[in-house]
């Protein structure tokens, strides 16, 4: 096993969803999807974002796209127009999730994939 950042094995996009945000996390292969589906639990995501996610984290599996979809409730400091935050729409949350480190079997990592 090797510890790598999600940015080495996946990509992501985020946006707003009411007073929360969503982050789509997409693995770079079918095999890596199995790894993120196992490792990137809603609990771990909530802990990773404990600095600003005040609500629950829901997770949906979208296996056909090798993706997980996370809903981060109460993560914007109020809804889109009410929020006083710089990132009132959760545009940066995808980049933030890619900083998480997880354990990945070494045989799934190609050249340069070590985080």
């Amino acid at each position, binding site marked *: 096993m090797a510890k790598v950042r999600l*940015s080495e094995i996946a*990509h*992501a*996009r985020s*946006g*707003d*969803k*009411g*007073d929360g945000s*969503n982050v*789509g996390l*997409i693995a770079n292969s079918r095999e890596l999807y199995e790894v993120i589906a196992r490792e990137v639990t809603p609990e771990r995501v909530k802990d*990773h*974002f*404990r*600095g*600003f996610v005040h609500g629950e984290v829901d997770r*949906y599996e*979208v*296996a*056909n*796209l*090798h*993706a997980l*979809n996370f*809903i981060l409730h109460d993560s914007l*400091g*109020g*809804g*889109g*127009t*009410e929020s*006083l*935050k*710089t*990132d009132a729409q959760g545009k*940066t*949350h*995808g*980049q*933030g999730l*890619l*900083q998480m480190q997880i354990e990945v079997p070494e045989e799934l990592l190609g050249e340069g994939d070590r985080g």
Partner: protein
Amino acid sequence: MKTIRIGNGQGFWGDNVDAPVRLLRGGEVDYIGMDYLAEVTLSIMMRQKLKDPNKGYATDFVDFIGQVLPELKERGVKVLSNAGGLNPHACREKIFELAREQGVENLKVGVVEGDDLTDRLTELVEAGHEMRNMDTDEPLAPLLEKVSSANAYIGAAPVVEALAQGADIVLCGRVTDTALALAPMIHEFGWSADDWDRLSAGTIAGHILECGPQCTGGNFTRWWEVPDLWNVGYPIVEAKEDGTFTVTKHEGTGGLVTVDTVSEQLLYEMGNPEEYLTPDVTADFSSIQLEQDGPDRVHVSGIRGSKNTPFLKVSASYLAGFKSSGTLTVTGPRAVDKARLCAEIVWKRLERAGVTFEPEHREEELVGVDACLPGVFPAPSDPPEVVLRLGVRDRDYDKVMRFGKELAPLVTAGPPGVTGFAGGRPKPQRVVAYWPALLAREEVEAHISVSVEEV
């Protein structure tokens, strides 16, 4: 098999103004969809219309049409947009004026109406439609007096009707973004109203298109792999009768269309991927199959869908107070400590003046340290400079106004190295909040009308 090319030339009001012109002139396209309505836009349009009954639509759209009208007509390219906002008739009148000036004849412009519920809201509530808030479950009734606008999200059917009547341009208000892509497919292919798989395919095509370049390389995680983002091509869907389609862009443009760029856009603003609800269909994103089909071409197939719901989404806007924010730039040494001291001075002086805010209505951010993703990246121990950003929100305009007067004094009364205070005192801005609710669809659909007129 018959194929039509549907492009998106505008992802939101404020998007690149050259994009739709370049989309039109850059190659073959049959339909161009243009999205101008974010939730906040309708409440802004309401204020514009109250001041001037000839306003309340997206003026950028008219500017675009003015640049390309003879060309649109000559090539037979049709344009579908929600630019009509709260005043599609005024928008059409403006387009007709342009057509007369430019000598363009036989231009047919369709107007779709019925989404605007503002004047019907009280009557609907009195008739027993509670329109409870989808997030909080509170009923709408106590808020009625404060509501400034209310619109239902309507589907593709009236847009299809306008196309059937020969419209070259279709102007809508709060139609769903996805309907602007789905409508031409229904019109061209004759899909039936319960062909859920195909309606789902057209809807998902619309979801991919609706944010413009966000599926062609914009906002892509591996941005360093995207060529010529400055010249990014706006997306085109080549749709086929069987519900399969290919996402692409014009040759010679920048950007990148790959399974990865399209996947990211598919997940954008996604809730439950198996139940993407629109007025037209319940689309199932877990059925989508993506395949790279040559450079900058992604083939999409396998899409399934199921019956639409008996409800339409309504979004009402209401004034929820005022907010204000301002920034100061603070240099090192000890930039973070100095910025925190500046914030402390502001809050303490406001408190002394009797102006206090709820903790959750007060924001204090250090841009350059941890404003966006606190706790995710290690904070720099001694950054050379930071931007202190302070903000407040309150129902009381005067309190918010008072806050705006406390930033400038720090330039002389705070620690050294504080600068960047320009542009005067931050002024209170209105906070427009949204009330998402559901309404029985027949209450809206009975009032939808389509009119196509020719100049």
